[in-house]
Every structure is written in structure tokens, then in C-alpha cells.
């Protein structure tokens, strides 16, 4: 799994996140992806080869392993991380779409006004690519939906893990009587304590991410409310300020200076 490639993608989208979003990304990569790759995968590495049942009956171990481990923790966590990272790409796609639209507008304006702007068109395009969009309007909605999606996905996967494995603790011994096992056999799971420790660690990291997402939602909603209140007072919104900032001489208002 090419986690560095995913990291590169998400870091690009990071520029348009709030500060809480940036913290969330760091927590995701350091405490979840890193720990998964560096530690957890070796703990679960021998989960099937070291799953031993007290019987000589061929096939019994396979069948019992399959019954108690329908999907491995590691795979569930990998899927969870991939799905949780996906809504951020929604935000990058929207930003790319906006930049594309703005670039077209800019090219139209510069072809019409010719020499009036002080910067060359390449510089303006570069500034457009490098600017940081304020989180207002449709971007706000896209961002809000992405955070809500992240939260729902986290909750969903946590619940799935809890239901499939009946809690976060890994037992040492399971008893199995599937065919072809003769009667009831004891089967022993390898490294149950270490697995429990890592399951609890990953569940904690997931909860921290959920709390960060919840805080980010509250922050976004508060910002939107304060912005709509200040707009009622007649102050310019930050979107209007941005447009003024990147296009100092908008064609409609050639300013008269002494």
C-alpha cells in the first residue's frame, strides 16, 4: 500500500484546510498510518500460520480461523484509512475546478485590457495557483460535507470492528466445532495481548480523529454564523476582499488618484 503517495495527495489538499484539519492530517499519518505500518503489521503477520487448534484433523484450523476472523484487523484499518482520506480529495477537486474557472476569467480579462495590469499573465497565473482560498460559499459546503463524511466513515468502521470482533479484546482461546473438526476443539490465537494493546491504541487514535472532526464542524458553523452576522452590518466579506486582492485593478472600477 503506497502510503507516501496518499500522503502527497493529502498534503496538497491541506493548504485549503482549517488549522484543525491540518492537525487531523498529522494525527492520521503519525499515529495511525505510521503505527499501522511500522508496528501493527508485524504483530498480525503470523495470525493465520500461528493459529493452532488442538487436533490433527486436516482443514479444521483453516475453517476455524475463517469462522473467527472473517476480515483481519489490519485490512479493516487499511480500508478505514483509505476511506477516511477520500473526502479530502473532494475538496481538492473542487479547488481545482475553481482555479480552472478563475484562470479562464483571468485570461479573458488580460486579453481584453491588454497592458493595464502591472504583472505579467504568467505571474498572475502563478499567484492564482499559489493563493489560499477562504472557506466561504460553495467551498464551505464542500468542506463541511467532506468533514461530515469523514466522521460518518470513522464511526461506521469503529462500529463494524466492534460488532465483528465482539469488543476490542482478543481472547487467547476460542472453541470451534465446525465441520470437519471432530467435536469441540480448542484453538489458540497468537499474541492476543499485543493485539489487544494495538486494537485499543488504534481505537483511541480513531476517537481522537473523531473529536477533531467534531471540533472542526463546530468551528466551521461558528465561522459561517459570524460571517453572516457581519455581512448584515455591511462589512465586505472575505471573498470580496480576496477578489479585490488578486485583481487590484478590476476593469469595472478604474480608480481615480490625484
Amino acid at each position, binding site marked *: 500500500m503506497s502510503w507516501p503517495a496518499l500522503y502527497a495527495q493529502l498534503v496538497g489538499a491541506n493548504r485549503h484546510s482549517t488549522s484543525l484539519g491540518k492537525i487531523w492530517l498529522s494525527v492520521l499519518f*503519525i499515529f495511525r498510518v505510521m503505527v499501522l505500518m511500522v508496528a501493527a503489521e508485524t504483530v498480525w503477520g503470523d495470525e493465520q500460520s500461528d493459529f493452532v487448534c488442538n487436533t490433527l484433523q486436516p482443514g479444521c484450523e483453516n475453517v476455524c480461523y475463517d469462522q473467527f476472523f472473517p476480515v483481519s484487523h489490519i485490512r479493516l484499518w487499511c480500508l478505514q484509512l483509505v476511506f477516511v482520506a477520500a473526502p479530502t480529495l473532494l475538496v481538492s477537486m473542487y479547488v481545482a475546478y475553481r482555479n480552472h474557472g478563475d484562470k479562464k476569467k483571468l485570461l479573458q480579462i488580460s486579453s481584453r485590457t491588454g497592458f493595464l495590469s502591472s504583472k505579467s499573465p504568467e505571474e498572475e497565473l502563478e499567484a492564482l495557483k499559489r493563493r489560499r482560498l477562504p472557506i466561504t460559499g460553495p467551498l464551505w459546503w464542500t468542506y463541511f460535507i467532506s468533514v461530515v463524511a469523514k466522521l460518518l466513515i470513522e464511526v461506521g468502521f469503529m462500529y463494524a470492528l466492534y460488532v465483528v470482533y465482539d469488543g476490542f479484546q482478543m481472547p487467547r482461546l476460542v472453541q470451534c466445532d465446525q465441520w470437519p473438526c471432530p467435536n469441540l476443539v480448542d484453538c489458540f490465537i497468537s499474541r492476543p495481548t499485543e493485539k489487544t494493546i494495538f486494537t485499543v491504541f488504534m481505537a483511541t487514535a480513531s476517537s481522537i480523529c473523531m473529536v477533531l472532526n467534531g471540533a472542526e464542524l463546530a468551528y466551521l458553523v461558528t465561522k459561517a454564523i459570524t460571517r453572516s452576522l457581519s455581512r448584515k452590518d455591511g462589512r465586505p466579506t472575505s471573498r470580496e476582499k480576496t477578489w479585490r486582492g488578486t485583481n487590484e485593478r478590476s476593469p469595472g472600477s478604474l*480608480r481615480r488618484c490625484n
Partner: protein
Amino acid sequence: TPLAPPAETDLESKMNWGTFYAVISGVNRHSTGIGRIWLSVIFIFRILVLVVAAESVWGDEKSAFICNTQQPGCNSVCYDQFFPISHIRLWALQVILVSTPALLVAMHVAHRRHIDKKILKRMGRGSPKELENVKNQKFQITGALWWTYMISIIFRLLFEVAFLYIFYLIYPGFKMVRLVKCDSYPCPNTVDCFVSRPTEKTIFTVFMLAASGVCVLLNLAEVAYLIGRACRRYFAGSENESNPAWISQRMSSYRQNEINQLIADHSLKSKFGVAKKAPTEREDRCSAF
């Protein structure tokens, strides 16, 4: 049974530590000298040794853990009883948690840079060159940054000590025994179980504990150094005016630069007798704030 996956995961884990190194060493620019030494110790004597040597020593810890019985499941259960969490995983978690507070400093520096850029834009000097200068600026460890740095060092210390304590709780003593006696179900009676490579494991345990100790000492030295520097600055500063806050210092230095610039322009004009005003001045007055 030898499996292909261990070789892949080895390469991948090296790649991941490499990414981690790239993230953490970015903080290096804003550290003190002792902080940089600490970072090198972490990477060379702990992470590198962990990845290159210790992981292969502990690689066969379970497959070569043998109990003197044919009872199936007894090996697994006895291994789990005596090794609740492997040394390797404990050390990996320790290194990750201990390195993370450094990111607090990086976040604070990023926040300050953001504010610096805003101030520059407000003063109407938002040219790309000036913004690049802001990005490459090195900040003095004063004021709020000093407190953030101090808090990050204290967290580092706390995590190190906490992990050393946990290590002591789980594995009292640093020596790895050759033989453990186990009688959990399903082992019949008491069985002898043999640990693989106990001496090599003892050597590496001692090495990693020593490296942890050195890191703790470096952190304590850094705390003392920061406090000493702050005291020195306070006593030297109390002889001069009291230090204004960082932001007002910045704005006053920019205003001073602007005033100097205006005086220089004015003196040039009076020398050459230019009647019309320079175009840049007109732009400054008309540009949006």
C-alpha cells in the same frame, strides 16, 4: 515457515521511517543546538538501530519460542503470558510518541509566519520576494515560542520517562532470561519454555535503554539551557527598555523601514529637483489596504 512478506514489510517500514524523518527534521531549523543533537541521537542511535539491527534479532521471537511439550496451543499461550508486548513495538511506539511534540514547535512557527505574511500584506509590501524572505526567516526563541518549545521538551521528557517505567513494569530488569516456566491452560503441569537469542536481546535492550537515558539527559540539559538563556535575556533586558511584544516589535521595525525609505526618497528628490512625484508613491497611496 519462511514467508515472502517479511522482506517487503522491512522495505516498507524503512520507507515509512524515512517519511517520518523528513517530517520531523523540518523542525530542526528552529531548535537549539542541543535540540539538534537530540534529534540526531534519536535518528541514528534509536531509529536506525531499531530498523537495521533490532528488528532482525526479534524477528523470530515467536517462531523460535519452544516449549517442552507437544500440547498444541501451549507455545502460543506461554509466549503471550511472558511477552504481552514485544520490545520492538514498545520502542517503535516510544520513538514515535517522543518525536511528536517537536511538531508543536513547527505548528507555532507556521502560525507566526502566517501572521508575518498578513502584517506584510497590510503594510502593502506583499511582493513575492518579501514573502519568500518570510518563509526562510529563522525565528528567535523568545516570548510565546519559548513557552511552546519548553512545553514540547517537557512532554518529550514525560513520554520518555513513562515508556521507561512501562518497560520496567512489563520486563523488570533488562536481562532476557533463557528459560521461563509456564503452567497456563492448556499446558499440562509446568513446562519449560526457551526464549530465542536471549544474550543478543539483552545486549540490544541495554543499548536502547542507554540511548533513552542519553536522550533524557539531553532534554534536561536543553531545559536548563533555555531557562538560563531566558534569565540572561531578562537581566540584560531590564537594563534597557522592557521588551515589547513580538508583533508590535515587527510593526515598528517595518514602519521604521518605511520612514527611512521615505526620507531617502525625499533626499534624492531634493538633490535632483524632480518636480513630479515618483509613480511608486502614487501607487502606494492608491492601492487597496
